[in-house]
């Protein structure tokens, strides 16, 4: 009796078709994986970009003084032009005193001061009078503990990382001609293969306080 089966030709054709199908599926899966990875990287970089802009903007809104420290350590008031944070250049804010303590472990670290008057002026202070302003420095530097270049915010004596792995993330702040508002712009080079487009985001921030510097 002749038994039913596949001929050699049928086997070769079906195997070839299977190989093509599986190769296609594999390529598709790998491509999908790469796209997902790229999107992950983009989303992470964008979140970093958004965070650094938001941190700087929040400080700008409440600043009563702005200055730049250049790579030589020389400080100058930031009243016009632009500052690119990085390569030793730091942006320094003077924030109005608002908290009873600037030591994170102090129980009064999150307790606001009271409003006090001095002559005709109103400010924050305590029974000892008006409290002095608080310096905040924003820089891009290598942090040994994180073993990478980071954006770092230093308030009083306390330092905090804002963005890790920030070698490809750049930040600049441009002061408007009237000195009353700034444009904060951050951009990064996408990690996607082939072309590396620059992704840029910016915010326009009005300085809320009267500058005292």
């Amino acid at each position, binding site marked *: 009796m002749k038994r039913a089966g596949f001929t050699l030709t049928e086997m070769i054709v079906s195997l070839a078709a299977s190989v093509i199908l599986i190769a296609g599926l594999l390529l598709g899966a790998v491509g999908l994986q790469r796209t997902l990875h790229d999107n*992950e990287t983009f989303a*992470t970089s964008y979140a970093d970009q958004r965070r650094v802009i938001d941190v700087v903007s929040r400080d700008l809104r409440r600043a009563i003084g702005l200055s730049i420290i250049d790579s030589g350590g020389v400080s100058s008031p930031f009243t016009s032009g632009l500052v690119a944070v990085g390569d030793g250049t730091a942006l320094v804010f003077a*924030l*109005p005193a*608002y908290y009873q303590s600037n030591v994170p472990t102090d129980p009064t670290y999150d307790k606001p001061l*009271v*409003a006090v008057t001095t002559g005709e002026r109103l*400010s924050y202070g305590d029974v*000892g009078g008006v409290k002095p302003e608080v310096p905040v420095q924003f820089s891009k530097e290598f942090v040994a503990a994180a073993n990478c270049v980071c954006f770092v915010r230093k308030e009083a004596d306390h330092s905090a990382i804002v963005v890790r792995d920030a070698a490809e993330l750049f930040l600049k702040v441009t002061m408007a001609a009237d000195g009353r508002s700034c444009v904060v712009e951050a951009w990064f080079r996408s990690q996607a293969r082939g072309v590396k487009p620059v992704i840029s985001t910016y915010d326009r921030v009005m300085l809320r306080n009267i500058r005292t510097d």
Partner: protein
Amino acid sequence: MKHPRGSTLFITLLTLSALAMLAAFTLAKIAPRFRIAHQNAAWQEARIAAEGGIDAAMADILRNATGQPAGTWTGWKDRTGAAATGAVLDTTVRAVASVLTSLGVTVETSNPIVLDNVRLPATSSITTEVDVQLWGVRPTGDPRSRWFRIRSMATCALPPAAYQAPEALDSLFRRFSLRSVRPQLQQDDVGTPCAVPLPNISRIVEALVEPIEPFELAVWTDRTLSLGSTGSWGVDSYDSSDVAKSNADGTYPGWLNVKTQENGSIGNNAGRPAGGIYGELIAANGARVRGDVATNGGDDPGTPAQENVTGAIALDTARVRSDFCREMKPLVRPTPGLVLPPPLLGLPFLPGPELAPTHYLVAGNLGAFSVDPAPLGTEGVVVIMINGDLNVVAGTIAIPDNVTAQIYVRGNIHFHGNSINAGAGSCKRPARLQIYGEDSSPALQTLRTDAPSTIYAAFYGPTFEAQLDGNTHWCGAIAARAFSTAGGGGGGVHFDEALRGIGPPVSFRIVRYVEDVRE
């Protein structure tokens, strides 16, 4: 032969399962990103809403705390939830909650009044509620001391599923309330508890507010400002309360005197010149100004020239600015219980004690007049409300050393060539003669001098057009709709720095803005 009919279905199901798993994996990867983007948008929205709460409080402060009578704080409640009715400002003033005294420094804050759970019109689909607390700082019965502290907390809803951002730095920075609300935030949720469900985000901003006084500048205008048209006309300052900055009797020492100061600032609030964004908003006409010269815009930041001020040859260009913005609001006369008619036969007006001033109502016009001194060792106040003109054709106005006269005028003011509050028997202190021009819309009124004279007075009239003779020396301050001079001459406006802190608030400004980021 029998075909295996179930295989097609099996392969299809297998493929669909694989595709579904792939889609589920992709969605699982992407969905949190979308939720985090939504969370970050809500974080931004919360700050904007909190600032909206500050705006709402500022609007109510402007409505209720400017001018002489205290307003009714409609919509505000005390911390027990009872509606604030009547003169809440006074209630707030009297209800001093905390007095901290140490080392001779006293810090006083009133009880707060609150706007509870204000639901803002949503600019997106995010549900938002705002709680606003308002304190009087160093409250006293004196309207000049109306300082405020505003604290506004906005809470915005987040997407229902609580997601912690994959990057821990984001969580540290944005501080969402995902499963519970921090105790610190609950302290600011005054009145009825916030109805925005968890997860949500709360942000708190604060503002300190101080009054804008009517006599802060030598010349303050709302429309046009044109200075004297000769090089010898000028604006400068002195301080009648300081002998180092004035003559021994507190009078203006003269332009070249070393006691004369350089705080005679002028400002014009007019928004933009006719026919363009940049151009003349103050015509300096070659006059000298020892103080800031400020406009509300008008200067092209792209050019080194200062287009906002013309004829600036005698000005210090470093003191020319374009960032002035100060709304000028008319003041309303007081509404006392007892009002007297003016004295007959030209007899002097009689002052009352500081806390119970004498009020006079002049139904028609009023000319020259004088005021009797208050009893020795006391201070007196007289309020004269004139329905017609203040027209000093001859004679003068004489205010004694221990009396403050507040004059409210609905008509025009014309001093002709007569010196005012500057002769024998006059105190020669601008703070003692405060003249308030009332709003008589749609008519505009005038303040005029038309011959050489010396005037010691402070004037505030948002609907008045002031025109001084070029040889008039006005010692004090002038705030008017428009200001100009006529005829050339060597006169000027000499700002008395002792006027700071004098007069009722005409507006308010934010002097400190902070965000409570450690709550």
